[in-house]
């Protein structure tokens, strides 16, 4: 009893001592500072239980302080609010504006705990300086004030005491801000649960990533593409029917013009969120996509079946008869010239330009693939990769135009107009004729042991397909490529949605071309068991007479009959040509197979 009584008295006295002390100091402070500080409000404030000297340290002798000689130290909020202070060191307001805690937390001596919704209080605080009309009234701010708990306040996007200063250079800062804020938008607008609650579609995000803007940003290069805020602006988010909305056509035109200075107004019809599966919203894109998918399916179904059956039949044939088409003739024996120097140079240039196009284009097509960014880095980023892509495309166009010129010269030699139809469907032409369809049927019969392998002339039907496909492919991929290269200029001729169509067509046709070359073309010409691993005559230009008899017996007979065989015979390729053919040919083959693997990996997983 006695002990507890004394303890109670001790605790009571201890409790009394501190407030008395504090009040004593404050009583002194009040005498001079009550003009500036509302002391009753301070006692009610969040810091009211602390004495003045808790923050205003350093006054040791009152008489000196009264004479202005013993000033208090600068208030250091970090003494108590360490984690906030730590974050605030890198905050924009600190770094650029030198703002201190009390500049936002005003008035500092009567701070109260926020009442009601803290997010709304914060927003109101920010809007003391940042115009409310822009940041709060439309879009997110309005939804927050209406009580939507999903709606973000200022801090949800910008951070609270860690508002980033992305970079000290304005240009880098803009690019980094674009990347960060686009990802912020996507973190909510790509969230399925939030989308369901707030009745918006996550397709918006998916479809953004299908555009050039989205793909390049996804690959980690936000410098030269549009992020969410470039079109929607950061805050003024209203339905596009509203004249103040960023998406209102006039405003959108200005937004596009910021990066595409030469453009027609109709370019705003470009759909930045296209959905090729949505027939109602994007009918033309939908049908373009359907056409390309059917084309791809048809081509690959036919030719992959053809390859598999051929491999199976040739494999059996090879092991039954132990036969391989001879690639090398005995020393000193002359060989047949199949390709001229011009043809070979054109093919080498074609190979180079094709690989450059694939190596620079596919990292954008599959920007989310793990190999995309390293590959773009290899080129020095998407801008440099784009320059190489366009350069290679121009080279390919030049080769294509030259091929067209050579085709015309073949049909009309020395301006001779008569007999062009005969030449077109003749045995030296690469244009398909009736025999090719018969050969194709014959080949399938041979696959299933229903007959002998057809006898071919100078060009087989699959070689003719390769050649003719270039005319389709170059037209489609070339035209769509130019539209994507100069969208602004083409907007004077075409509606904006044609850019979306061009994107679908260019992308799918590129896939068709690359995979066709790396699988079907490689198999037909190099990987088929009778020629494995490499048929070099496209690089050396010549092949043995025995190979000609085996592969193209009709041409051989025709040449013998016409007495032209001897004039086709040339010296066998030298060691240099052989070495070049092996290194360049095998290198291209291996690179193509690796690329095919990477493309399938990205497309399937």
């Amino acid at each position, binding site marked *: 009893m006695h002990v507890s009584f004394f303890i109670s008295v001790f605790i009571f006295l201890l409790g009394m001592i501190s407030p008395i002390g504090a009040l004593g100091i404050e009583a002194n402070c009040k005498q001079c500072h009550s003009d500036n500080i509302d002391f009753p409000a301070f006692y009610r404030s969040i810091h009211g239980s602390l004495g003045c000297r808790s923050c205003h340290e350093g006054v040791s002798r009152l008489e000196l302080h009264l004479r202005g000689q013993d000033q208090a130290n*600068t208030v250091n909020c970090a003494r108590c609010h360490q984690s906030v202070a730590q974050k605030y*060191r*890198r905050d924009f307001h*600190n*770094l*650029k*504006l*030198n*703002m*201190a805690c*009390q*500049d936002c937390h*005003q008035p500092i001596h009567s701070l109260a705990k926020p009442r009601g919704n803290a997010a709304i209080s914060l927003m109101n605080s920010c809007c*003391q*300086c*940042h*115009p409310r*009309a*822009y940041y709060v009234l439309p879009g997110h701010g309005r939804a927050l004030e209406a009580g939507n708990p999903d709606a973000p306040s200022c801090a949800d996007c910008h951070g609270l005491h860690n508002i980033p*200063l992305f970079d*000290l*250079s*304005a240009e880098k800062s803009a690019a980094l801000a674009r990347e960060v804020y686009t990802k912020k938008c996507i973190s909510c607008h790509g969230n399925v649960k939030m989308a369901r609650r707030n009745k918006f579609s996550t397709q918006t995000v998916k479809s953004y990533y299908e555009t050039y803007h989205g793909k390049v940003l996804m690959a980690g290069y936000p410098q030269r593409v549009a992020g969410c805020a470039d079109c929607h602006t950061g805050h003024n988010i209203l339905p596009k029917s509203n004249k103040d909305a960023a998406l209102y056509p006039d405003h959108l035109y*200005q937004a596009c*013009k*910021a990066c595409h200075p030469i453009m027609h107004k109709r370019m705003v019809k470009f759909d930045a969120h296209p959905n090729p599966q949505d027939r109602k919203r994007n009918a033309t894109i939908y049908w373009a996509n359907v056409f390309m998918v059917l084309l791809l399916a048809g081509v690959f179904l036919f030719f992959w079946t053809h390859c598999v059956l051929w491999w199976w039949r040739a494999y059996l044939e090879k092991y039954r008869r132990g036969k391989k088409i001879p690639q090398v003739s005995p020393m000193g024996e002359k060989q047949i010239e199949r390709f001229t120097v011009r043809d070979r140079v054109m093919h080498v240039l074609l190979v180079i330009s094709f690989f450059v196009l694939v190596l620079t284009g596919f990292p954008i097509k599959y920007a989310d693939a793990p190999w995309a960014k390293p590959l773009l880095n290899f080129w020095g980023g998407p801008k440099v990769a784009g320059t190489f892509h366009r350069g290679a495309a121009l080279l390919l166009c030049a080769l294509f135009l030259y091929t067209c010129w050579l085709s015309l010269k073949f049909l009309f030699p020395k301006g001779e107009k008569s007999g062009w139809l005969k030449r077109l469907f003749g045995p030296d032409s690469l244009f398909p004729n009736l025999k090719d369809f018969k050969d194709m049927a014959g080949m399938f019969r041979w696959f299933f042991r229903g007959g002998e392998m057809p006898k071919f002339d100078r060009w087989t039907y699959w070689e003719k397909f390769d050649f003719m496909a270039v005319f389709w492919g170059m037209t489609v991929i070339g035209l769509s490529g130019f539209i994507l290269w100069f969208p602004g200029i083409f907007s004077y001729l075409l509606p904006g949605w044609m850019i979306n169509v061009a994107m679908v067509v260019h992308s799918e046709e590129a896939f068709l071309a690359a995979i066709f070359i790396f699988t079907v073309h490689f198999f037909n010409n190099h990987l088929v068991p009778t020629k494995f691993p490499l048929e070099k005559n496209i690089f050396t230009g010549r092949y043995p007479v025995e190979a000609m008899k085996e592969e193209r017996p009709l041409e051989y007979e025709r040449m013998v009959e016409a007495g032209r065989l001897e004039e086709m015979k040339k010296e066998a390729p030298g060691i240099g040509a052989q070495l070049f053919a092996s290194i360049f040919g095998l290198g291209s083959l291996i690179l193509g197979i690796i690329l095919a693997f990477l493309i399938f990996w990205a497309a399937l997983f």
Partner: protein
Amino acid sequence: MSGYQRAIFSFIGMILFCFTPFGEAAHAGVYYITPKTLYWWMEYGEAFTLINTSSYLECLDAKIPKSLCLSCDEREKVKTLVPPKKEAKIVLYDSTREWETFCPLVDELAKQGYRQLYILQGGLPAWKMAGFETESAERIPRIFVPSIKAKDLDGWLKIATLPLLLDIRMEDAFRAGHIEGAMNIPLSLLHRKYPDIPLNRSLVIIDADGTKSLLAASYLSRKGFRDMKRLAGGMVAWEKFRRAR
């Protein structure tokens, strides 16, 4: 050489002469220095003069310890404030930006023969970002000053009761382009010239990029100005708005 060839060579020579960067000569001997290097110079007692080239108010507000306050347009003070030894190392920095592009001080120092001029990369923000301390001789408490978008200012300028547009950029920048009717008092002279501003007018304070107007407005509020707004994003935002229009 024929007359035709001579004409071509003369033309090429003329073009090359036009593009010869003679202006660079004034900046010979100007180097960049990182905050970390500056910090080590300070730690190891390297002899150098540190100059904050921002305005007097900004320099009072926050600076790297031991900095001199000598704003870009105070060329005349170079002789009195900067040590006379031409071999002396001089480090210059801005309070809010990477570097003030219109800073005649560098030209002046170079003209007077100083050969070891350094510019602090990233200015004071980079120094702070690196986590190094700053000091404040007399901090100006900030007040809440609403900002106004360029579009709204444009609309506002069309109504009868015009606000006074106070452009606080340096004279060179002001001369290069400004909003019509704006009054120019550079931030570096604001503490001396604020009495020239009429108290009865509402003010719109305009700076280069929106980072200096808050300080100016906060300072002016201590001098009795009440109805103030800031142009959000400064002249950069204004020019962007005009181009879009």
